[in-house]
């Protein structure tokens, strides 16, 4: 317990101070370079949910899964929009090139050169709550973050054990503190032939991680052309007005812009991130429906609508754009259809 407290204190010390907090947040949704699509992905698959072990450790994993597919149970507390983790991390965070949690888990802690700060896995998940969920992240040692970390760890470790013929081997239990760290530390033992072989600097490159590379097309992404693509291919599920579809008062198909979607600081607000996600994964259950140019265009359309404000905004869109969006492939602070995007943004972080 003493050790746990000490570690917590260390973590907190690393993140205190206003300036530190600013740079810390600045980088939370840092872009991960997309990778060329691997051809030999077929073999990695997480274990079936029914194999989550009984007992306290298994309970954390189960809780993580529940939060992942029904994040709305935190609406009003940590979640300020109508999204669920699984809306972007498809198949409950298990699908390759839809930002799978098994690959993300292995990649953290990750050092971010922009802020000189090493983000643990749990800290990275906090970023998702603050931006993608337009909410306020639960504390690092909260049951929610421990649960999401445990679930992500289990996806990774179970899949790796199976890959090397160790189907009967239980996923080793980790302490809450270790779970929050992620798999990119010396202490994190990879199973089978991978043990001692995968260097730390390679752990962020698991095939299937993040999103697949989608080459730039000849024409610059056009919201105008994208509007037509949206009406033709996307509106039936996400609605003409981008607000998704509710069934029995539950948001089933996610809103893509507006007050109930991800905010201007979320990674998905970047046109390149959205384009590759859409190209690779939409429509759900079919995928690779659009031509690359169409994916770029429709991503530009979706990401040039107003959405909740960037939580780092301090009253001046131009200043926020300059400080946080200078290298972005996004529309924040830019003029589209006669309006500077961000000037009519919806409130950021609507939860108390």
């Amino acid at each position, binding site marked *: 317990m003493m050790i746990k407290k000490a570690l917590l204190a260390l973590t907190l010390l690393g993140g205190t101070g206003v300036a530190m907090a600013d740079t810390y947040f600045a980088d939370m949704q840092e872009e991960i370079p997309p990778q060329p699509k691997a051809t030999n992905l077929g073999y990695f698959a997480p274990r079936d949910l029914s194999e989550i072990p009984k007992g306290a450790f298994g309970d954390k994993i189960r809780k993580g899964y529940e939060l992942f597919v029904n994040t709305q149970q935190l609406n009003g507390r940590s979640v300020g929009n109508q999204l669920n983790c699984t809306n972007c991390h498809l198949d409950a965070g298990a699908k390759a090139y839809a930002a799978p949690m098994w690959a993300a888990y292995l990649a953290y802690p990750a050092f971010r050169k922009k802020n000189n700060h090493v983000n643990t896995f749990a800290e990275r998940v906090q970023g998702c709550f603050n931006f993608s969920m337009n909410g306020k992240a639960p504390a690092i040692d909260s049951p929610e973050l421990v649960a999401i970390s445990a679930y992500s760890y289990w996806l990774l470790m179970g899949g790796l054990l199976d890959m090397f013929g160790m189907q009967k081997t239980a996923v080793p239990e980790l302490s809450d503190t270790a779970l929050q760290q992620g798999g990119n530390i010396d202490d994190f033992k990879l199973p089978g032939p991978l043990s001692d072989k995968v260097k730390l600097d390679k752990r962020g490159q698991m095939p299937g991680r993040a999103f697949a590379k989608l080459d730039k097309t000849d024409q610059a992404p056009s919201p105008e052309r994208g509007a037509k693509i949206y009406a033709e291919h996307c509106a039936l599920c996400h609605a003409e007005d981008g607000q998704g579809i509710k069934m*029995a008062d539950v948001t089933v198909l996610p809103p893509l812009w507006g007050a109930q979607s991800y905010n201007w600081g979320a990674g998905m607000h970047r046109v390149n991130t959205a384009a590759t996600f859409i190209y690779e994964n939409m429509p759900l259950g079919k995928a690779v429906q659009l031509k690359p140019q169409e994916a770029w265009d429709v991503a530009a359309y979706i990401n040039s609508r107003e959405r909740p404000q960037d939580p780092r905004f301090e009253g001046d869109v131009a200043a926020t754009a300059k400080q946080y969006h200078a290298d972005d492939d996004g529309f924040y602070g830019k003029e589209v259809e006669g309006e500077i995007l961000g000037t009519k943004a919806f409130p950021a972080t609507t939860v108390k």
Partner: protein
Amino acid sequence: MRNLIIASGLLTLMAATAQAADIPTEAQQCVTCHGDKGQGTAQGPMIGGMSEQYLDAQIENFIAGRRNNTLMTLMAQSLVDLPARKIALSYFAAQGSPLKGQLRGDKIALSGAEKLYYQGDLKRGLPACYSCHGPAAVGGGSFPRLAGQQADYLAEQLIAWRKLERSGDHDNTMGHIAAKLKEDEIKSLATYLSAIQ
């Protein structure tokens, strides 16, 4: 005694008339096969509680030949008066009992059809049916309510998707998904969904 019987007979008749009067004239022609509340009969599937948008799209699909059923195609071809069609469809859309919505993640250790519905099958690229048909298969927007639908009808439709005898879904997404379903999965999905109350 005799008076009582007559009186009760009258009451029954009045009740029946009142019930029939609740159904707009425009919807009367659908009742024979689909039931007075769209609950379905031996002649036709459940349409009650489906969204207007979905029902309307199906009429168009029958007219265009993207769905095939001799009787329904003829019926659909007669439904050209769009305002009248809308009245009929909104009547049926307003029917259907509310469902106790089982949310994704409420249960984890699932098997068979329920597992496919709430979790899909990653290895075959099958998304959870829930992603589009919603909690307890209640449906909405362009997606049909599946809960309580006749099992035979559901199985028939999934097979029709597979055999390319039914189309009209957007970008052939449902056709693509149905093609991956195995014979026994279709059966168990149909049974599971029809039992949802």
